[in-house]
Each structure stands twice: as C-alpha cells, then as structure tokens.
C-alpha cells in the first residue's frame, strides 16, 4: 500500500487549502505536515529544496515532489481518475478545454482583486498597516466586473466549465470562503442570484466543509 501523500503548510493558507480540498474530493489519504511560517521554516534550505520560492504548499508522494497548488491539483486529479469525484479533471476534451479556460480566468481575473481585498480588509488591520482605501475601491470594482461575467455564465451553466463540478470551481473555494466569511463584502457574491446559488452548492460539499473544519481547528 502506498504511503499517504504529504502536503506541507498550514490549512489556513488559501493555496494549501486548495490542495487539501482536492485530495479530499478524490479520497486520497494524506498527511498534513505543519510548516511554521512564524519560525521561517518555509525559508529554510530543506524546505527550499522542495519549493524554490519558499512558499506553501509543497507536495510529495512516492513518485514526485511538486509545488504550485493548481499544478498539484492537476496531478492528483489526473493520477486518480477513478477515485472520488470523477468529474474533477473534465471527462472529455471539450470539458477539459472549458475547465482550463475558467481556471485561467480564475488566475488572471478573479485572484488578483480578491487577494488584494482579502489582504486590505482583513490582514492589513491585523498587521497594523494602514488600509489603502483607493486600492480597496479599485479592486472591488474589478471584482464586481468579474462576478458579473460569472453571474451570466452560471445562469446558463450549472458549474463554470459545464454541467459538472471541476477544478475550475474548486480553485475558487479558498478566496471566496475568505471574502464571504471573514469580510463584510459577502454581498458581492450573495446579491448575485446565480453566483449565490453556485457558491452555496460548492461550499457545502463535504470535502470543503472538512477543510473549513481543519482551518478552524
């Protein structure tokens, strides 16, 4: 029997949680190895060997060491096609292409403004940094445009890539969870009928609920 795969990093990290939810969706047993950011463990030579940018997560199984959460998710989804949620990686070339398209949209259009908002609204005050109101306004405006596109898409499609839940939807879970649960900007999502329906469906999946439990532990 293969040893459980290893994921390095704290579950609160959005990138780490992206990998954890993927492993849980695929029923792949894993061991979560803590990395103390406070003790700068992620910048130590042993860790840098796995992840040359000194960031979390890193991933190891019997065959390979990997980094970048979306690359790890693709590897897991491809390696275990018949385990757990089988639709995760797209069941045919057309769905796969659509999944890639919406994963790119996530990276290029959704992540930048949602990350800035998460940082400015939640972390800046915690770190005693002055919030940049102009930056908040600018990024909220950007995110609104993106969510308008999603609202339209999800009006004619159950999930982003098509009828089934794929990595394209999964990838949105961490940042959206943060904005909906930890900021006062939840209405950006909940005021949009289709986005709200989609968020409700994907965030109540057992795998994501488990990850949230791990984050709150």
């Amino acid at each position, binding site marked *: 029997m293969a040893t459980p795969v290893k994921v390095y990093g704290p579950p609160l990290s959005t990138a780490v949680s992206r990998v954890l939810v993927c492993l849980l969706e695929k029923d792949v047993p894993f061991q979560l190895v803590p990395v103390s950011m406070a003790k700068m463990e992620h910048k130590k030579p042993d860790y840098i060997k796995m992840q040359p940018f000194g960031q979390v997560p890193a991933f190891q199984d019997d065959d390979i060491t990997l980094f*970048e959460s979306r*690359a790890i998710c693709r590897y897991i989804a*491809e390696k275990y096609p018949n385990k757990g949620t089988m639709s995760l990686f797209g069941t045919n*070339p057309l769905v796969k*292409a659509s999944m890639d398209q919406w994963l*790119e*949209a996530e990276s*290029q259009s959704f992540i930048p403004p949602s990350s800035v908002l998460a940082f400015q609204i939640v972390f800046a005050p915690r770190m005693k940094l002055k919030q940049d109101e102009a930056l908040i306004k600018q990024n909220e405006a950007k995110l609104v445009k993106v969510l308008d*596109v999603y609202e339209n898409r999800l009006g004619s499609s159950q999930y982003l890539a098509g009828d089934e839940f794929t990595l394209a939807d999964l990838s949105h879970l961490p940042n959206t969870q943060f904005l909906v649960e930890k900021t006062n900007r939840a209405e950006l999502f909940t005021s949009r009928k289709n986005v709200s329906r989609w968020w409700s469906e994907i965030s109540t999946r057992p795998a994501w609920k488990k990850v949230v439990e791990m984050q709150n532990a």
Partner: protein
Amino acid sequence: MTVKVYGFVGSNATYRVMASLYEKNVDFELVTVNMAAWEHKRPRFLARNPFGQVPAFEDGDVSLFESRAITQYVARKYAGKGTELIMKDPIQMAIQTVWMEVENQKFDRASWKLTEIAMHRVRGGPELVAEYEKKLSDVLDVYEARLTENKYLAGDSFTLADLHHLPNINFLMETRVRRLFEARPHVRAWVADITSRPAWVKVMSLSPW
C-alpha cells in the same frame, strides 16, 4: 474548417496563441479585432470572450478564450503534429505543469506590470519599476538555478512551459529590463534559444515594430 484566432498584431496574448499554432504547423486565420473601435466590448465579441479581452479562438465547434487555455487545447488536439508541446509521461507532465503555473502566477505578474509601465498603459514612477524589477529578479534567480540543471524549464525539451514566456520576454528585451535576463548566464542562453525558434521568428515577422 479554418482555425481562427481573434486578436491583433501587437497583443502579447495573441502572440502566445499564434506561437503554439506555428509550432504545431496548424494553419489558421488571424481575424483582427478593432480595439480602437471598441469591438472587443461589443456583444458579438463578448459572446466569444465574456471578459472582453483578446484573444478568442475557434476550431470547428470549439470556442475558447484565455491564451494559456487555448495553447493547451492546441497542444493536446494536435499531438503528433509539429513540435510536441506537452510531455507524454505523466511525471514529466506534472513537472511541466508546475513551471507553467510559475509562469502564470509569478513570471507574468512581474513581467506584465513592467510591460504595461513601458507601454505607458499604467503610471509607474521609479519606485514601482524598482518594486517589480525586484519581483522579476527573484523569479529569474529561481529560473537560473533551474536552467543550470535543465536545458528547458520542464526538462530536456521545449514545451508550453517555455513558450508561454515568449511574448513578455520578447517585449522586455527591447527595454532596460533586458539587463535582468542578461545578468544570468543560463537565463540568457535560454532566452536566446527560445526566441530564435522558427515559429517565434514567424510570429515576430508579423510585428509592425
């Protein structure tokens, strides 16, 4: 049925797609989108890319947007034709995917901002330039180490992991930012190698500059 790329000469993202099609020897038609007339924000184009950005792509019944999704589709559909742009072995492909993500999440963020500043599309004083040059330098340090061990980012052969870099690298090599690439010997050699590929030279031959 002709493959169509909706974009324009001068668009980095359009070039990214064209490079992949030339590498695969796939004939296509470049349909110019009239940005000055805001064609990209009109309903007909928004039906192709709801974000109102170029490029968009059409291959028979398949309609796609996002340049890096298009290149992956082209690489898979036309496997066996022209240059192999994705690794066949799953382990090697996993490694390729890591470096494709690095380009997307790290290299593009830093290099695109510097490109926008150089194009005067974004206001950027010396402080902003210095900030993003530092980000790019940190990424290129990792590349230098990687390319000391491997000829290309994914391993022994040229793949999408390298190709995706071409448009931004090409632009920045015409600016002061070139010194960041040239200061690192393996990065410099890799840049010289990938920018001299016939498919890329063909893309550049269309450029008005």
